[in-house]
């Protein structure tokens, strides 16, 4: 069944057969991994590919917005990740320590990720647009030992360093050795002495590999802890769902500061020996189409927000480019609306295939397979080996009625499932009910077994495919001198699906104004990130609260979505 991806049409029967016969040992066998033996993602994605005779194959074509270009073979990736690993070992980094990657999409990010894993340390990638407060809470929680960054982002690390006693090293990848201040160190990947042989740390299946932070409704972001065995899922789903084949040129739009950018922007393609391309540039339709054309991209993994931005530019611009190399399109981050699927059919002659998964799952879990009939707007069906259902919101029992809404739930046990939240057992245990893992989303299942997304089951805001926690925003809002109370909720948006809207009451002496609104917006953008910045702030006299004084975001959110608020009996009257 390893040819599932190449079926012209996967019939319902063949899908059932695949599921019946499926075992993750298929991937273990293809990766030549035997249970109990060491397994290291850094080695799997570089040395192993070279051993398979692909040392000279291009692993990465990189380009930035200025047109600077770089090219790395798998042997380059092997040697340079060794070089990275040796440098970290020489600094005294020990297996299990957390090393943060805080960079734009530069080659050092991709190769350094493998280098960290080769030492046995844990890679902690963070989105480089995070502000100092977002950086601080994540480094504090992870007790991070080192941060690898660039000159343009280092000021944020310097700002919070004194509050991070465990942070021993700030490493700059683009600084001149002579310009680096005390307590910081320069590492120039390509001019450092190349390390041909590095003793890769013998991590095992359950050794921690990657720590990705994700937001919840309450409290600060949680560190989702992955293990080296996750490569088994990431390898196979990249092969079967993204349909990666030996001659493909693959482009994943995601930033490795988020899980898609590591699972399918590094581990998935490189464990398959696939050539990938990276464009370190903000969104620009012309630039993107040029890149697709010039790089002859055949498999493109994008996101609904990007697709909707491209839709705005129309199909004429598409016709001006030769995109005949495109063979397969997939999307992730938030539900792909039917219009976007139909538009891609018109624009590219093929649909985007929606994939559903999250930081905690580590790999695609519900999806539209290549060849499978796409129902525009549907999430697709569970990947073989993933038992998925929807649960009743009260009993947490699977719903058997076709089309009824429930909580998306997965039976635990697939290889890339997180093993816990970093130092947060309570939060992790709360994700399970009746033996099911709860994704935090609602959906229904139709008579053909296709899942249909309905929305989040909590107050987390999904903006442009990224989850933003209201608590973090509200905490930062309260740091502004004018803000007395605050609530952050989702507001519908035609491009990003949702954006952040904040409701704010002001302290005595402050008056609502456009100036104040802009000041607060910029305060959040700099402290947290542009994603967390409220796109609108509504100044109100009071916020809806329970009798115990807890702010009820549900009331505000429902108002934004024009949905019925439901039971208001617990809301305090003013």
């Amino acid at each position, binding site marked *: 069944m390893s040819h599932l991806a190449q079926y012209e049409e996967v019939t319902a029967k063949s899908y059932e057969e695949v599921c019946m016969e499926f075992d993750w040992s298929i991937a273990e066998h293809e990766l030549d991994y035997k249970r109990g033996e060491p397994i290291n993602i850094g080695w799997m994605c570089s040395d192993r590919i070279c051993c398979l005779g692909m040392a000279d194959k291009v692993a990465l074509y990189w380009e930035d*917005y200025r047109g600077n270009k770089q090219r790395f073979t798998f042997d380059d990736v092997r040697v340079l990740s060794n070089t990275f690993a040796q440098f970290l070992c020489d600094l005294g980094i020990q297996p299990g320590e957390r090393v943060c990657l805080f960079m734009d999409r530069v080659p050092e990010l991709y190769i350094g990720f493998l280098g960290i894993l080769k030492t046995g340390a844990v890679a902690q990638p963070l989105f480089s647009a995070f502000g100092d407060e977002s950086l601080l809470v994540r480094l504090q929680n992870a007790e991070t030992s080192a941060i690898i960054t660039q000159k*343009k982002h280092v000021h944020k690390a310097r700002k919070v360093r004194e509050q991070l006693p465990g942070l021993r090293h700030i490493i700059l990848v683009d600084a001149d050795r002579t310009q680096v201040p005390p307590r910081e160190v320069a590492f120039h990947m390509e001019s450092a002495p190349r390390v041909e042989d590095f003793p890769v740390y013998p991590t095992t299946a359950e050794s921690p590999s990657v720590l990705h932070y994700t937001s919840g409704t309450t409290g600060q972001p949680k560190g989702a802890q992955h293990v080296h065995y996750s490569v088994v899922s990431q390898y196979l789903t990249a092969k079967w769902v993204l349909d990666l084949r030996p001659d493909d040129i693959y482009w994943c739009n995601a930033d490795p500061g988020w899980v898609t950018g590591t699972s399918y922007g590094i581990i998935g393609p490189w464990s398959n020996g696939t050539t990938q391309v990276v464009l370190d540039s903000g969104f620009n*339709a012309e630039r993107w189409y040029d890149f697709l054309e010039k790089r002859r991209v055949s498999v493109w993994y994008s996101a609904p927000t990007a697709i909707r931005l491209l839709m705005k530019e129309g199909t004429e611009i598409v016709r001006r480019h030769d995109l005949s190399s495109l063979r397969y399109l997939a999307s992730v981050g938030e539900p792909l609306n039917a219009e976007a699927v139909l538009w891609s059919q018109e624009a590219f002659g093929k649909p985007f295939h929606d994939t559903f998964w999250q930081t905690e799952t580590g790999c695609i879990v519900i999806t539209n397979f290549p060849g499978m009939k796409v129902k525009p707007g549907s999430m697709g069906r569970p990947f073989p080996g993933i038992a998925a259902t929807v649960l009743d919101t009260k009993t947490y029992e699977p719903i058997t009625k076709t089309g009824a809404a429930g909580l998306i739930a997965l039976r635990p046990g697939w290889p890339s499932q997180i093993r816990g939240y970093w130092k947060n057992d309570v939060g992790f245990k709360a994700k399970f009910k009746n033996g099911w893992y709860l994704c935090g989303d609602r959906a229904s299942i139709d008579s053909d077994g296709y899942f249909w997304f309905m929305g989040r089951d909590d107050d987390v805001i999904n903006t442009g495919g990224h989850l933003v926690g209201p608590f973090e925003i509200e905490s930062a809002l309260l740091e502004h001198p004018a803000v007395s109370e605050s609530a952050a909720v989702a507001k519908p948006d035609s491009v990003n699906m949702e954006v952040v809207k904040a409701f704010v009451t002001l302290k005595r002496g402050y008056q609502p104004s456009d100036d104040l609104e802009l000041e607060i917006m910029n305060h959040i953008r700099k402290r947290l990130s*542009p994603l967390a910045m409220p796109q609108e702030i509504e100044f109100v006299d009071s916020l809806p609260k329970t009798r115990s004084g807890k702010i009820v975001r549900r009331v505000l959110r429902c108002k934004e979505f024009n949905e019925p608020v439901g039971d208001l009996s617990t809301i305090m009257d003013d």
Partner: protein
Amino acid sequence: MDDITKVVRDYVIREYLEEGDDREITETTRLITGGIVDSFSMVSLKRFLEKKYTIRIPDADATPDAFDTVQSIVGLVQRFQKTAPVGA
């Protein structure tokens, strides 16, 4: 450098360029493509322009392309300055 160009350029440098980012911002520096301003931050830049010049920029015109350089932003502001001011 005319007044709008200076105001926009200064605001971009002050609000969006990170400390230590030594890139020079000229009238043609790529702001969106270059990752200095992203599509989310564009909203706060739009708010600033609307407030500063008492104009309304419709969402349909606030495209990544229109916000990609100081020059294109100035063009956008001038275009909407010609229309009736807000509240007029």
